[in-house]
């Protein structure tokens, strides 16, 4: 198994980072919608607890992923994207890092400002980032929600781009993110 990326292929570590992020971020949206609709009760606390726990995992994962990405070669672009398409793809990739780092931190600020502790799966409690502050709490909450909408748009853009590679250019972009991909002449 190839762990590191090469100029032609993603290594196993990058692939694991990608799909683990897909699973965690994919779980966060339904959990968020569910917890928002719950009446204030123990179940709502549990739901928020789960959302915060996964959020902190995404923060840690994204930090590690960013370090890994910066320390690895980037496989070259396949297909025939126009310059603006290549720019959009790149912007989406870097926005993912920015948002997946910013959202957990802003959520953490939101909790701290609301005087609600952040506990990760019952393992440990994170320190409060700020003291209780109702205005900051509102700002953090609105920003967190806004970023979740932006994230959905970027996910749509990212998936659309991947589909264009698969359907229009019929290249190996999607298969390259799956285990067992072998760069060969046919891919180039």
């Amino acid at each position, binding site marked *: 198994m190839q762990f590191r990326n090469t100029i032609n292929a993603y290594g196993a570590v990058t692939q694991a980072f990608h799909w683990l992020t897909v699973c965690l971020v994919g779980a966060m949206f339904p959990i968020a919608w569910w917890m928002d609709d719950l009446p*204030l*009760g*123990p*179940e709502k*606390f*549990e739901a928020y*607890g789960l959302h915060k726990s996964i959020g902190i995992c995404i923060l840690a994962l994204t930090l590690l992923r960013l370090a890994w990405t910066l320390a690895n070669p980037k496989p070259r672009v396949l297909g025939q994207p126009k310059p603006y398409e290549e720019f959009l793809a790149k912007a989406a990739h870097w926005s993912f890092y920015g948002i997946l780092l910013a959202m957990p931190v802003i959520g953490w600020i939101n909790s701290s400002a*609301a*005087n*609600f*502790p*952040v*506990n990760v799966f*019952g393992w440990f*409690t994170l320190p409060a980032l700020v003291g*209780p502050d*109702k205005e900051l709490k509102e700002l953090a909450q609105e920003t967190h929600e806004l970023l979740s909408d932006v994230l959905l748009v970027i996910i749509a853009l990212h998936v659309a781009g991947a589909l264009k590679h698969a359907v229009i250019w019929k290249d190996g972009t999607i298969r390259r993110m799956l285990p067992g991909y072998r760069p060969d002449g046919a891919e180039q």
Partner: protein
Amino acid sequence: MCLAFSGAAVAEPAAWTVDMKTSRLGFTATQLGSPFEGAFKTFSASIRFDEKDLPASRVQVEIDMGSVDSQSPERDGAVVGAERFNVAEHPKSMFETVTFENLGGGKFTAKSRLTMRGVTKEVEFPFHLETRSDGGKRVAHMEGEITIDRRDFDIGQGQWAAATTVGADVVIKAVIRAHAPL
């Protein structure tokens, strides 16, 4: 002559006035195992205390449960409901001392009765007290805390009964600054 007479005749310990601005009746509760702090904004205390006359000393504190402030209007609005504080039926909690014991070095313990949500329990309230003279009056700084099990007072019924979401133990911490005439 009058002064000398009244001085000798005063049997009751000094009446202390609480400085509400610098006193705090706080608590630490837990949520999913993590602590958060809050306070009761409104309370009144009747304090007759003389460390040289503990048998005659008495402290009564009345706490307005609806004044709970955990910096979250949503959480505060929920905690006063019927299943928890039930302020509609039990708006006040009461803390009353029964006997004091001087442990030395400014340390005391007060055998007391605590009534919350209509349930009265005996509790031991240990505290530390410093008094000094300042500008023609005596000033006191008292700090003490006790840990209670909210379930002893039936706080947390139905869905709130389990101690996993909201912990059973609650630490109540009082910091009281008060003054009395010399």
